[in-house]
């Protein structure tokens, strides 16, 4: 299969502008006659659905949640990047582009990333106009902060709830279109299949989660904005319901899954506390602006801390190893996520972890509290402040900046992070891989589009902090409203699509059979127990570091687990009722296939890059070693009928950026 990225001609900085200006348009009277299905109502889905509605298309939007406002975009904490250069610190569209390409370890498409950087500035304007209460300076202008992997301040934020506020903004726009009748909202509907008619995506099969009834929905094209697949690991920072099913169903119908092995392990999450644990909680990357990461220098100290015989405060400065500051002096605690995560693994592998399980490191705010305390005392004109005074003033500043995060930490762990340092450990957070799309965000199936985390397009092998919100909204507000016209302008003569064609009827029947099979299996093991087992295999063999031997073993284990699932899963109840266990079962069944493709991709990619770290490919100083000669390509996987995945390659051409070893030293 030849993969055509459809990247427009012209110089990098002009591609999008020129393309936008010469693209096919659909006249308003025709837009009224065209139906668009949007699946998912997170940042990408809600922004796309509302914008397409504003343009005049008939939009049908779907979410499995009870309300579009609950999508997991809501949990993003830290912020959103934009190349506004409001801080006058040397930022520009090119710099954001360059940082993103470099951060992604040179495994993303130049043209897409540059477009993302261009759209970034418009997103902020749009969000402000919608009433998103971004943080402000005293003069009333927008405030910024820094994030990992960059040396400018370009992150806009609304306390530690930026994702929530941006999603509420998109949701309010969507609500307005629902009220105007331009978007028909289907809550509690889960997409279970995509329907292809004459080679084009023309609709979806959904299950009404309240009644359990299957429904056939037809449209001229289908847009998937259904998020990432991090929950394949069972334990991740994703919401419990986040799943790969919509994207995976598309793959089963011929779409390609690109770079599935690129998963992001976020360095600052709350460590696992026990076997019963259902999910992991992220502590925003913004904390690394002020928090210092360290472990004890001596193994004896680490052991004593693990056994609860010593505390962090008892360790003198010289007995601490601030390993990020030591190894990466230029970026210090603000190295990109993949680098920080691996460094934490190295430290704990040496036995220097600071929690009972050994899998945790410190994130310490004592220095920041003292620094802020002293400067506040100075501003307030307090001469010779006592150390208690300094601490109090400093804690106040830290609380203003990160109060809700500190509170969240205390709720979960029962420990006060103002008094003793936080304990953190890396956890699965985001998936850079996703459905293969071209420059128009269209998959290899005509009329099937993928936006946001569901596609693979912008982050390469590693995503920079505060870029997920940027990409979701860029795709939904500013890219798809234009590029969808490239497909729909050829459909203006196509009458309304019928949902009674043989293709729809077959798809519904197959879906029904799949659901019946899950119930009829009537085995002895719960869906949850299968998911947990899958997660353990994934984390063990396809987690923070991977090797060929482990991956081969892992693939076999997943195949066995999949067979076991088919024979022995137990799903209570019936299909036609509100049945959360059945919902879980369909999702886990798809994860059991997706997991194998991730491992195959990881095995195939004989290099280390970004979030994909192969133990065999390491430089002499312990850093990831890319192989640009052989692997500067996108690996797009096809799931063949016989259950054997096959890889197709899109070569990545770098015309503007020179491929270098990524260094944050």
């Amino acid at each position, binding site marked *: 299969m030849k993969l055509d990225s459809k990247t427009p001609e012209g110089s990098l900085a002009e591609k999008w502008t020129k393309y936008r200006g010469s693209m096919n348009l659909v006249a308003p009277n025709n837009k009224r006659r065209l139906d668009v299905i949007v699946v998912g109502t997170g940042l990408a889905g809600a922004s796309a659905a*509302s*914008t397409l509605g*504003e343009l005049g298309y008939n939009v049908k939007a779907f979410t499995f*949640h*009870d*309300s*579009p*406002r*609950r999508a*997991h975009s809501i*949990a993003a904490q830290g912020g959103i990047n934009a190349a*506004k250069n*409001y801080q006058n610190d040397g930022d520009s569209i090119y710099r954001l582009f360059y940082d993103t390409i470099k951060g992604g370890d040179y495994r993303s498409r130049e043209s897409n990333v540059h477009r993302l950087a261009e759209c970034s500035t*418009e997103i902020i*304007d*749009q969000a*402000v*106009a*919608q*009433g998103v*209460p971004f943080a*402000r*300076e005293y003069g*009333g*202008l*927008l405030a910024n902060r820094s994030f990992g992997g960059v040396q400018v301040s370009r992150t806009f934020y*609304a*306390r530690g*709830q930026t*994702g*929530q*506020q941006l999603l509420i903004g998109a*949701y*309010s*726009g969507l*609500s*307005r279109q629902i*009220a105007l009748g331009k978007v028909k909202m289907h*809550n509690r509907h889960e997409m279970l299949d995509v329907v292809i008619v004459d080679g084009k995506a023309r609709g979806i099969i959904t299950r009404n989660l309240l009644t359990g009834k299957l429904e056939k929905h037809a449209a001229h094209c289908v847009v998937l904005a259904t998020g990432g697949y991090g929950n394949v690991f069972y334990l991740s920072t994703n*919401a*419990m*319901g986040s799943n790969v099913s919509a994207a995976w169903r598309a793959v089963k119908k011929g779409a390609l899954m690109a770079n599935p092995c690129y998963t992001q392990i976020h360095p600052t999450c709350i460590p696992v506390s*026990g076997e*019963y644990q*259902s999910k992991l*909680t992220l502590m925003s990357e913004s904390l690394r602006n002020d928090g210092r990461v360290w472990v004890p220098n001596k193994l004896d100290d680490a052991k004593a801390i693990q056994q609860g015989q010593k505390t962090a405060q008892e360790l003198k400065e010289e007995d601490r190893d601030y390993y990020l500051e030591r190894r990466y002096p230029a970026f210090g605690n603000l190295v990109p996520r993949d680098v920080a995560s691996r460094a934490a693994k190295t430290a704990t592998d040496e036995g220097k972890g600071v929690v009972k399980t050994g899998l945790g490191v410190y994130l310490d705010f004592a220095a920041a509290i003292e620094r802020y305390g002293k400067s506040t005392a100075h501003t307030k004109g307090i001469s010779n402040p006592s150390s208690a005074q300094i601490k109090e003033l400093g804690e106040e500043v830290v609380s203003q900046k990160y109060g809700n995060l500190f*509170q*969240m930490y205390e*709720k979960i762990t*029962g420990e006060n992070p103002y008094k003793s340092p936080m304990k953190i450990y890396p956890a699965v957070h985001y998936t850079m891989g996703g459905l293969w799309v071209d420059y128009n965000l269209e998959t290899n199936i005509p009329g099937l589009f993928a936006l946001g985390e569901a596609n693979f397009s912008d982050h390469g092998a590693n995503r920079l902090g505060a870029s997920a919100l940027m990409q979701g909204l860029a795709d939904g*507000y*500013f890219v798809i*409203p234009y590029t969808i016209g490239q497909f729909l302008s050829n459909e203006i003569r196509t009458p309304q699509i019928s949902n009674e064609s043989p293709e729809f009827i077959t798809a519904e029947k197959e879906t029904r059979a799949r659901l019946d099979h899950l119930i009829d299996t009537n085995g002895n093991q*719960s869906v*949850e127990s299968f998911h947990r087992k899958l997660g353990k295999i994934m984390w063990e063999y396809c987690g923070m570091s991977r090797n060929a031997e482990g991956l081969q073993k892992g693939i076999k284990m997943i195949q066995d687990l999949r067979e076991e699932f088919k024979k022995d899963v*137990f799903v*209570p109840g019936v299909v036609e009722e*509100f049945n*959360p*266990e059945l919902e879980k079962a369909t999702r886990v069944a798809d994860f059991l296939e997706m997991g194998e493709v991730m491992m195959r991709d990881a095995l195939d990619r004989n290099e280390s890059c970004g979030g994909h770290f192969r133990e065999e490919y390491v430089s002499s100083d312990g850093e990831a070693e890319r192989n640009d000669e052989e692997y500067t390509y996108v690996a797009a996987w096809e799931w063949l009928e016989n259950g054997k995945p096959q890889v197709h390659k899109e070569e990545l051409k770098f015309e503007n950026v020179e491929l270098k070893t990524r260094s944050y030293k």
Partner: protein
Amino acid sequence: MQLTLKVWRQKNNKAEGKFEFHKIQAEEHMSFLEMLDVLNEKIVSEKKEPVAFEHDCREGICGSCSMVINGRPHGPQAGTTTCQLHMRAYKSGDTITIEPFRATSFPVIKDLVVDRSSFDNIIQAGGYISVNTGQAVDGNAIPVNRDDASDAFDSAACIGCGACVAACPNGSAMLFTSAKINHLEKLPQGKIEHNTRVKNMIKQMDKEGFGKCSNVGACGVECPKEIPMDNIAAMNRSYLTSVFTKE
């Protein structure tokens, strides 16, 4: 710790519900929902139907979890959603009563799951600023007073969980509605449509069958995002103004 759970079971909206008792072994580091996961694992292993409850992000922000624990929405702790509640708040031997949010406008779907689409309907009646994509001026073109932005945020922090309604003896949605109105009113961009927004959202709120406010104050106490009751006072003031303002 050994606990007894008294859980509300209800097959669907039409069926009659009843309490069911379960004994369970829990650990203090578990979250409340993880404790329910353990219960459900046990129920499924007996090939029975697990307790249905709504949950998603499990970090206190999506607003999905909706249960009344020992008579209080989201349990005993201030500023905490059910998913953030941990079992260290309980001791061995405790009996915990778990019920769904109860309000006329939140009909029960199954067990602890209720239908809160009435909230979406209120937002659709005007909880937005009428701006199309691409129309916006530069983000810094209109300065916003720092305290106003911060106040707007305090109201915008609402997660739409409905604890305010569940806590209110009248089943009133005044705190939810007022939080949205005040969030937008505090910002220059939102001021323009303020009067119509107030009228339309309140009209919709009444249409959904929510009760009136009688200044009980339970909503503000139980709100997991600690959105204060002054929002209601401000909305009442806005409502009066809007009624006497010519459009």
